[in-house]
């Protein structure tokens, strides 16, 4: 219970900071909507479902990257991460709190992006939406860890895509597969397995990323 209380306090703190500063979510919303609008006018009508779903995933992954790039900025200002690391809570709670907050921002962006996609392109069935949600979970779990690693280095903006994009490729494959394949459930299972494995790895390794 104490662990969950720590996670709740840390997530709540991130949501509060975003509500005050509005640094991340407006940028994510603007990016994902403008990307879908550009794609709507750029691709021909006969391009097909697969192309449309592929473009949706380009928008999702880069929107997530935008959120992840800002994820640890409040901790970098005034060196707060040292303060959190020194606190007697389980250090993985810091990662979990950040992952949940980033997931909340990504879901908020998609609450606007997915209806826009349906409006501009194709309808999304339940399997496709489930694929998006599962991939969100994976991106945020792995991305929060990679973002913490990138934040420790000097060239955060350059390093983050290099760390996250290779790990996001299976998620994109799974997400697109869930949307276009007739055997979409198999891709959902794949995404579920990816989420479970990488969430556990990220949870267990976070302590080594933030300590010497």
């Amino acid at each position: 219970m104490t662990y969950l209380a720590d996670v709740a306090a840390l997530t709540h703190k991130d949501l509060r900071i975003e509500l005050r500063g509005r640094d991340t979510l407006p940028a994510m919303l603007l990016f994902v909507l403008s990307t879908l609008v550009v794609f709507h006018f750029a691709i021909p009508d006969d391009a097909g479902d697969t192309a449309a779903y592929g473009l949706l995933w380009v928008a999702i992954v880069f929107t997530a990257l935008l959120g992840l790039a800002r994820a640890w900025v409040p901790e970098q200002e005034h060196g707060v991460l040292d303060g959190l690391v020194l606190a007697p809570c389980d250090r993985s709670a810091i990662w979990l709190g950040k992952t949940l907050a980033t997931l909340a921002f990504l879901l908020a962006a998609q609450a606007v992006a997915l209806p826009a996609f349906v409006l501009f392109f194709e309808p999304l069935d339940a399997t496709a939406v489930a694929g998006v949600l599962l991939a969100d979970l994976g991106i945020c779990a792995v991305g929060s860890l990679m973002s913490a690693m990138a934040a420790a280095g000097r060239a955060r903006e350059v390093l983050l895509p290099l760390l996250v994009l290779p790990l996001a490729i299976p998620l994109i494959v799974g997400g697109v597969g869930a949307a276009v394949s007739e055997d979409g459930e198999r891709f959902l299972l794949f995404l579920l397995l990816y989420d479970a494995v990488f969430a556990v790895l990220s949870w267990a390794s976070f302590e080594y990323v933030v300590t010497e």
Partner: protein
Amino acid sequence: MIRGRGLEKRYGRKRVLRGVDLAVPHGGFAVVTGPNGSGKTTLLRLLAGLAHPTRGDLLVDADRSRIGYLAHEPLVYRELTAVENLDLFGRLYRIPERRERIGMLLGRFILWEARNDRVSTYSRGMTQRLALCRTLLHDPDLLVLDEPYSALDEEGAALLDRELESLVGQRTVVVATHDPDRLARLQTGRLGLG
């Protein structure tokens, strides 16, 4: 109690600390001095448990939850208020009756009136006083203070003097400072670096 022997710290090829020996008994008050770049901050980070020595033996007889670390940076969120910052750390440190403790510290460091203002609106001196509140919040057994007087005006410095005086003999304190004379009457030992 702190005991360090032959402490060395390297970052890549750069050696920032070399052959440092120190011993601070329980209730001791050690002052660390030295010019910029002599390794004061690095030594304090080792004592706080934020870094590990590359060589040498270090024993710090205090649990992580019982260490209070004041860094160069205040370690508080700019977009949160003083109360919100202290409440977050109070939860993480599992402080019983944390609201009373927070109120008492904010009053003592003359931040009560500004308790609901965001830290981003604070002056440097106010931010440093809030950082001191965060450091003392969990009533630590070991205090590791890196340049605690920086950015404090005379009133703030006098507050800190009184706070440190009340800790002498009760808590183990290690302070890095460029102004060791200010702490001369409190110190039980001094370590010069560089």
